[in-house]
């Protein structure tokens, strides 16, 4: 009988202060799946942090490697579990990580929220969350673009009325 267990793909931004939650996720999954192997997608900056926390394999994103190439490599490892690790209270934001979890064909998806027990979530439910958040992104972009367009026009107008932008030499 093989002692090789399933592979868990940890989806986290691995920012400062998130180490405890990553450790908790690893411990929780290892308790549930015997012989668990772990992997994560990380940037060159977060990779050493992830390795120090015990993640066995880190697929590097960035430094000339695009999202598509990174995804292909992550899928090639055949993870059976995706674990989305949230860094705040609740599951706000984190659309990038949730979209990754939906797009990689794993058998189980777990959500780890600080201060709450790990929760398994079905792919359809997570897909609905992703779709809702994608709409929010579109709304946020519209708000951002409108605010910045108004600001640009107002500021340039004030500047032109005020007499040009070039520095006056002493």
């Amino acid at each position, binding site marked *: 009988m093989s002692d090789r267990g399933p592979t868990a793909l940890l989806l986290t*931004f691995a*920012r400062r202060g998130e180490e405890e939650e990553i450790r908790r996720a690893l411990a929780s999954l290892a308790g549930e799946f015997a012989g668990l192997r772990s992997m994560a997608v990380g940037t060159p900056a977060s990779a050493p942090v992830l390795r120090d926390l015990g993640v066995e394999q880190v697929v590097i994103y960035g430094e000339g490697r695009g999202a598509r190439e990174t995804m292909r490599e992550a899928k090639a490892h055949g993870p059976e579990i995706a674990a989305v690790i*949230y*860094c*705040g209270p609740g599951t*706000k*934001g*984190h*659309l*990038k990580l949730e979209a990754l979890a939906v797009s990689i064909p794993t058998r189980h998806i777990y959500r780890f929220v600080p201060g709450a027990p790990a929760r398994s979530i079905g792919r359809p439910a997570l897909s609905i969350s992703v779709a809702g*958040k994608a709409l*929010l*992104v579109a709304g*946020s*972009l519209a*708000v*951002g*673009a409108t*605010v*910045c*367009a*108004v*600001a*640009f026009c*107002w*500021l*340039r*107008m*004030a*500047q032109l*009325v*005020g*007499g*040009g*932008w*070039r*520095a*006056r*030499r*002493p």
Partner: protein
Amino acid sequence: MALAATLIIVNYNGRELLERSVPAALAAARHAGEQAVAVADDGSTDGSIRYLATVHPEVEVMAFPHRGFGHTCNAAVAAAGTEAIVLLNSDVVVSQDFLPPLLDDLAPDVFAVGCKFVNRDGSLTDALGNRTSCQWRRGMLYIHHETDPNLLTETCPQLYANGAGMTFLRERWLALGGFDRLYRPFYWEDVDLGYRAWGRGWRVLYEPKSVVFHEQGRTIQRARTRERIELMSAKNAVLFTWKNLLDPALLRRALSAQAKWAADDVLIGGLPPRTRALLAALRQLPEAARGRVREQRARVRADAEVLAACGAWP
């Protein structure tokens, strides 16, 4: 002959912090030749003024109604009677010999000199305000605080002197108009002041021989929630670019980044609330535009020159 200076400790409900900061300031003032020490009180309600009158009657108390950090600093500097001013937060404990190097650095083309900020245990981990510079990342301007001790050994130019411990000539402060109330209630007013000083052809220096111990953020954290602090800081970061980037190409670049910024709330999460920050900044747009016009009338250096001098030309 050394300049006459007033050490002004800015206080808001920091009575217990004053118990450490005032004796240290008094010792430093004596060490530097009987300089004056004052506390500018921003309408404290915790007995700070009573404490000073009882325990340190030699300290001048400038009592103002509660109008915020920037306003209180401006009022205190205007009321002070010396050529040089040292502004200190109430959570800053100065070392005895911190003052002479700061006063020595106030050359004719220098606006301000900043101290070396260390944590209470003497470490530099996460210490803010040392050899400040700015960096462009994804079209946004970010402030860099040096924490490598090997790079904090020489007197050198920096973007701005941290308002928690800065020395300057009063006359120049008044010429710049002091801290801009655009940044109320707090954060970024000192960055703005430093940038404007560079824009007027002056320099801002970092002085590593002037060591002060800083309990970072204690004064603000006592009074505000973390969410509010992050929101105000993000709002003021936006307002800083709107007011100060006079080069239209740079402004366009910053605004493009800010337009996408809002989506990061959902895409990433766990960040300062950027959509709310943009909307809060929008409410102050007319005020930022007025500040922008004031700046362009006074500037002698273009943004490119200011940013290059601070090591951040994109």
